[in-house]
């Protein structure tokens, strides 16, 4: 297991009012993303527990592009990764933002 942590300053707060959401599953080649609206509006944190060692640079690139594209301000992401491919990671993060942007609790 490897633990990674990324913190970004972002330009805008994520939309919606929902407080937390979960997408994906913990399985080989897949990942689970828990997203919580728990940070100041200009911050974003991504915590990763991954089964695959030595992919820090790829994670950094994936998270960097994601933050740039979706501006997920105020959100903390906790990822349980089962060795998912980078494209699957991007997709799950985008799905998490879409889900928490919905109206609700």
């Amino acid at each position: 297991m490897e633990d990674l942590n990324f913190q970004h300053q972002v330009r805008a707060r994520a939309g919606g009012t929902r407080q937390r959401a979960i997408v994906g599953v913990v399985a080989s080649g897949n990942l689970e993303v828990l997203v919580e609206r728990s940070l100041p509006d200009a911050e974003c944190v991504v915590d990763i527990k991954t089964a695959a060692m030595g992919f820090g640079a790829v994670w950094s690139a994936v998270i960097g592009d994601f933050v740039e594209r979706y501006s997920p301000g105020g959100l903390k992401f906790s990822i349980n990764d089962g060795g998912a491919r980078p494209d699957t990671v991007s997709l799950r993060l985008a799905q998490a933002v879409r889900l928490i942007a919905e109206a609700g609790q």
Partner: protein
Amino acid sequence: MTSWQNNRAARDARIAAGAGLARGKVVEAHDVTRLLEAVVRSGDRVCLEGDNQKQADLLSRALLAVDLSKVNDLHMVQSGVVLPEHLDLFDRGVAKRLDYAYSGPQSARIARMLFGGKIELGAVHTYLELFARYFIDLTPHVALIAAVSADREGNLYTGPNTEDTPTVVEATAFKDGVVIAQVNEIVDTVPRVDIPADRVHFIVKADKPFFVEPLFTRDPAAITEGQILTAMLAIKGVYAPYGVQRLNHGIGFSTAAIELLLPTFGERLGLKGTIASHFALNPHPALIPAIESGWVRQIHSFGSEVGMDDYIRARSDVYFTGSDGSLRSNRAFCQTAGLYACDMFIGSTLQIDLQGNSSTVTTSRIAGFGGAPNMGADARGRRHPSEPWLKAGAEADPDGSALMRRGRKLVVQIGETFGDKNVPLFVEKLDAIELAEKLKLDLAPVMIYGDDVTHIITEEGVANLLLCRTAQEREQAIRGVAGYTDVGRRRDHGMVSRLRERGVIRRPEDLGINPLDADRSLLAARSIKDLVRWSGGLYAPPSKFRNW
């Protein structure tokens, strides 16, 4: 006096030597090894029918058991090296030299045996190439083939999996060779005559039906969102703008996803009737929903697929069938059709380099070429025009004279940037080059050469290589869809964004596709059971796919 019929006399002598073991043409299964010892001569070129799917397995075992003092050092000329027995022949010394096209399940062992010097390799071919050589310099002395049934005269019914048989028999029987067929049963009258009796010299009833591998079945349950996204990009980014109607799909989950998106995503885009209507393709179960929805007009097949027989029989408007109603496949004709009459090939691969060359060879596996290089190559002898072909030609050479400009076949490589176990699809140098150096081959085993590739599709977007004007643009177009692989992360961001402005690279959003819409609910069938339902119960999947 010079004799001009030595080969015919030698053939007649071989047949006479075997005749003592036969009643008419029929030889009992327990006498087959003795028959082969009588008919086959050391050093002969032998075609042991190993197709992509159908295997003359009884004859393989019988050949393996020959007395080495009578038969040895054979030169095997067969398209598929698929069964363990095919390689046991070399371990035992029955055979010495090999010319082949495809080695699928034996790819790791064949590599070890080539390194170990157990096999003297002629060359690895494409199917059409090896078939061509059957008629020029690799004509078999003996062909050991497989059929469904025979009558007592030796007329053969090869059934849905006719595959290579007519080609092998044509080359052997008409050039003084001996043809021996294993059949599942001997009947009074065959359902249809696929091979006439005067081309068949001995028939053997096998104790069990010949082995057929279900190679072309992909379980929709295993299709990922990433594959659905790349399939959406393919349909909207390539099939639609070129109006591709005549095509071949490789095997793999990305093309299975395309087949399953035609009746849903394709229908919504209003593309029915304008794309994907005429195929050179095996009977892929994943195409059933598109056929049932009226997308597909006609399919010609290289071989058949396990479980599809009743469905094909009931859909003869779509498939090629014989007087008995069952499928007639023919690999040589279908390869020719794919080469000359299709405007697009789309398939996956294992490695793509910075020039767009692709290979399925890794340093420990030599899978051979099969048919992809013929499907995935511009046919330089093509002369008939079609819209997709002309449009692709114009994109490659916009300033050329319209009347003198060749068209281009669309050769599309589709895949996710990372494959199984996070292995990157894009590499700086193909493993095939290292392999060629190790084995001292004259040529690296390249599946599709970069100068034939027109488009590369990944989840990151579509790269249109026809629009690249320099080697540098081409490299950056490839890096620009290579995602988070090392190749992708080393892109020149400025150049990639300029290529995107020119439409050389198109991202999902450039095509109006939201990656979040790439959902399994878009698949017309999400399981094998759904395919059975679409077929009205006519598709009978083999047990390994019955997971419900």
